[in-house]
């Protein structure tokens, strides 16, 4: 009799434990209206966690213990503008699907990760920016002449990442193309290089990053006719209006003092593509 009571308690304990194990952290912070909890306050306290991509050459690439790329340079500009030494920034890899929840849960303070601004996402996070306007494009082999844009994809094999927006757009708008999906763009590019797919599709800036990789130098080209608009934003907590506005100011300053151009030139610009001007007038995404 005593034994089974213990068993019952133990069973309950395990259930509780496994639930706790899922919990991990300290539950996050509730409501972050005040500036102390926004990015301005976080930077003042000397620590800022920026969520970035880890596997996109030229944009956000984990190179061992550190990260490099255009998004990382933008992150450094933002940190500096907030009065924080960029070396104090903690970079954290985020996956496409968890960017909103990472911001909401406070696992990261800012997300700069090829993050397209759209209305659905605005429901959960606030976007500063856009700091770059990308567009869905196609990456093909350098000697390919029969793919000139999305209209010429009929019967061709196109690769993108499972469940991503570019993949969905191909399915809905260009159903004649055959879609191959992988979990990373690296695999898509490898398949393109090997001739298993005819094109890789996602935002032009991401594709440019791959085309500029030394291993693929001269072998791949971006078509250069973007067929969508993907304004990239810098996401903070939805309630952090002050922080959002501050980041827009920082971006404005970076556009005029040339640091924005430098950020481009030292990363994606290496492939020879000149920097686009940052459209200062469109920096209006912060919630009022």
């Amino acid at each position, binding site marked *: 009799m005593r034994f089974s009571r213990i068993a019952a308690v133990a*069973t309950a304990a395990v259930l509780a434990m496994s639930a706790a194990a899922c919990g991990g952290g300290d*539950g996050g912070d509730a409501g972050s209206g005040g500036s102390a909890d926004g990015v301005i306050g976080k930077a003042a306290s000397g620590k800022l966690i920026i969520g970035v991509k880890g596997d*996109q050459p030229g944009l956000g690439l*984990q*190179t*061992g213990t550190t990260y490099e790329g255009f998004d990382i340079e933008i992150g450094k500009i933002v940190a500096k503008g907030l009065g924080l030494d960029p070396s104090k920034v903690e970079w954290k890899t985020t996956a496409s699907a968890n960017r909103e929840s990472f911001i909401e*849960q406070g696992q990261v303070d800012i997300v700069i990760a090829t993050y397209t601004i759209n209305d659905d996402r605005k429901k959960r996070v606030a976007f500063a920016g856009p700091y770059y306007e990308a567009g869905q494009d196609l990456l093909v082999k350098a000697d390919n002449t029969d793919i000139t844009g999305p209209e010429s994809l009929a019967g061709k094999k196109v690769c993108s990442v499972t469940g991503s927006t570019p993949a969905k757009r191909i399915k809905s708008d260009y159903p004649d193309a055959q879609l191959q999906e992988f979990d990373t763009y690296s695999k898509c590019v490898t398949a393109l290089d090997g001739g298993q797919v005819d094109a890789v599709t996602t935002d032009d800036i991401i594709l440019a990053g791959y085309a500029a990789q030394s291993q693929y130098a001269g072998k791949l080209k971006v078509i250069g006719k973007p067929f969508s608009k993907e304004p990239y934003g810098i996401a903070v907590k939805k309630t952090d209006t002050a922080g959002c506005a501050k980041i827009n100011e920082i971006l404005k300053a970076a556009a005029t003092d040339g640091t924005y151009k430098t950020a481009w030139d030292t990363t994606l610009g290496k492939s020879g593509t000149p920097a686009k001007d940052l459209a200062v007038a469109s920096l209006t995404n912060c919630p009022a």
Partner: protein
Amino acid sequence: MSTDAVLYDHPGPRARIRNWILTAVFGAGLLALFYWIYLKFDEKGQWAATLWKPFLEQSTWVDFILPGLQQTLSAALVAMVLSLTFGVLFAVGRLSDHWWVRVPAGIVVEFFRAVPLLLLIFFIFFGLPYVIEDLRMEAFWAVVAGLTLYNGSVLAEAFRAGVQAVPRGQSEAAYGIGMRKNQVMRYILIPQAARAMLPVIVSQLVVLVKDTALGYIISFPELLQLGVNVLSANYANVVAAAIVVAIIYIIINSLLTALAGWVDRLTRRRGIRVPRTSANPGQTGVQPTAAAQNTTVSSGLGGG
């Protein structure tokens, strides 16, 4: 028991010649196949120095592979400890005299054994934060929780089968000297069951190590994520990286399997044998027989 030798006679002169010829033919065929694969890889430039050179550099190991390996091993280790605990508790729960313990424990175990781990990890990471507000879900804990729920359930069945396979005389004698059920379980049944089921337990742990690789679905920075996905984003050598990482997995798991074999031999030498349930179905009843077989041979099968 050496199975192999029982099935055929000791080879005589003719059999030896035949074996020798078969060896030569099959061996030559195999070598030819490997050479063909080598040639094909060569043709596609997969042996190109640029793809493999990163593995000669220290930074590749220090920055990518070793940190990934460390994450893989620590997630596996934490999950191992938790799954074993989970397994023992739920095995005991399923053997309880009270239906209100036995039935819920049974439902939990059966459910988590039947759900693909990939779905489970994905849900814990992405789904739970929607359900529980303000939950900070770290990839590490999502992987560990998924591994624990799945492997713990499989281990619970292994322990249960092990307990049921302990000869009834053991517990009868223990009750006879006045032990309570709790004591019988703790001092008599569980130790014997754990020892008898050791090979099963260790092979399930091999599965657990491999299954940490499923963390890729939530970008958990384990060996596969760092060593293949991130590394190849740096060097554009995804096939080479996958070959190296596969070899590392094979080495780790072979060591674990060797450990299992060693432990198995050790327990055999001490004269502890797993009662062969199929050989004496009368002893443990009908259902346990199947349960024991279920877990004995094939529990070593997981996701990825």
